[in-house]
């Protein structure tokens, strides 16, 4: 089962777009069985209808799409309520935080509270990671330390730096916090991924394309170019995401009444 752990659907205010049918075509041409789909930040600044649209796509293509919600934690109580609605009513399987596009810092108190809440609901959290000032790896580690038990996946290998200067921080975050994982999209130097797999095991690395910002087919090429045991490659390509979602469903919060 080949799973792309992070794609974004809709028309973004940031100038990119990807429709469900277009994503399905890309998945089919690249041999991707399932994709985690996440809302974009729309022109309206309103994420709730986007979360609903993702839920509809998940219902329509249950064998192809795994829906995650996207929430702005600065909305406080409203953000918590939206997370509950998305997980318990809409059936979405995880939470995505994009501090860069929404404009907050990942280890601000409201974000930490929302990540904790996701943990108590038993769903994983993907963080658009590596953006200086708002979501670098050690800021995310700080969140993980304060939201023990929540599975967190950092996109971009936890670092966005084309000199490799942020890799030491991402490595340190993984080394010191077992609940952190990394997605593979756009990672500078494949040997960083190889080093992480050697040090922390293939269970901590997941294939993510972050399409349409990155090219799904080329991001799959990236994972296939990693020098690793062939028997472990399946973990990165989908089994890790399957395991994380199964663990979530086992620990999921039971709604009262």
């Amino acid at each position, binding site marked *: 089962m080949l799973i792309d752990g992070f794609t974004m659907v809709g028309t973004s205010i940031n100038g990119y777009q990807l429709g469900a049918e277009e994503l399905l075509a890309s998945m089919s041409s690249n041999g991707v069985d399932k994709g985690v789909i996440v809302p974009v930040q729309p022109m309206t600044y309103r994420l709730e209808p986007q979360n609903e649209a993702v839920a509809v796509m998940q219902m329509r293509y249950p064998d192809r799409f795994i829906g995650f919600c996207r929430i702005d934690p600065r909305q406080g109580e409203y953000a918590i309520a939206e997370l509950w609605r998305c997980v318990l009513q809409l059936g979405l399987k995880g939470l995505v935080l994009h501090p860069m596009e929404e404009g907050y810092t990942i280890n601000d108190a409201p974000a930490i509270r929302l990540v904790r809440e996701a943990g108590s609901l038993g769903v994983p959290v993907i963080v658009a990671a590596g953006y200086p000032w708002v979501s670098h790896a050690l800021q995310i580690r700080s969140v993980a330390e304060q939201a023990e038990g929540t599975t967190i996946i950092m996109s971009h290998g936890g670092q*966005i*730096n*084309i000199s*490799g200067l942020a890799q030491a921080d991402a490595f340190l975050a993984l080394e010191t916090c077992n609940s952190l994982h990394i997605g593979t999209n756009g990672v*500078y*130097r494949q*040997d960083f991924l190889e080093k992480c797999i050697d040090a922390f095991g293939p269970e901590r690395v997941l294939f993510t394309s972050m399409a349409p910002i990155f090219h799904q087919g*080329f991001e799959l090429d990236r994972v296939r*170019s990693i020098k690793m045991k062939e028997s472990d490659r399946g973990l990165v390509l989908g089994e890790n995401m399957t395991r994380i979602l199964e663990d979530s469903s086992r620990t999921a919060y039971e709604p009262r009444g």
Partner: protein
Amino acid sequence: MHIIDSHTHVDEYEAFGWFDPPEVIIELLDEAGIEQAVVMTYADAPVLKSDALQYIHDACKKYPDRLIPYARINPHANNAATLLEEAIVDLGMKGLKIHQESVTASAHHKAVVSLVKKAAVFNAPILLHSGDEPLSLPQQFTRLAEEAPEATIILAHMGGYHHTDDAILVCEKYDNLLVDTSACPYPHKIKEAIERLGAHRVLFGSDGPGCNPKLELQKIRRIELSEKKQQLVLHDNIMSILEGVRHTAPGRRPHCS
């Protein structure tokens, strides 16, 4: 098709934790079907690595048909210009590499401008880092392009993750600026650069061994260029630049080749 990778590294540098003797890149070039590669150290001569130029010279002597040497020099060094002249005239090196983050100077710093102009005396190309870091922003290249219009200046990485558009923009404005494709995570942006700048101003580079040359080559294959444009990007552009390098200096005879 004969392919030249215009941006790779050979070095064993403990401070960065990157140990890549020449055999590492040779093996990866073989895997990718790439005949030749421009190589440079990770560390700058003479500040971080006093024998960096000799190291790269020895590596290229070991594989004379495969590796093409660039001198990576810190422009702040008192003897930077002398080292560059010796590297080109005595050691037969073909170009200059400056990594602005490593030497703490932006592209328009007077020490950088001075050394770039020195390289231009030999008609040698200058490969500068470009990306999202504070000293590597593409817009910083405009002053350098104006002050050294005679120099052939290559923006490595095409502006990194979030300054790709800026990299293309400044190259549109200044004819003496070119881009290399190394580690650029967006195949569609490489295609756009070729459309806007012309295939003659885009050079294939991998930034191997950390970035796998085979994967980097796959990026070029994915954008489906005409054979003529592929030939330019993968070989002819860098070859014609290298052929233009003069290994003589007024009043000075080379010590050895």
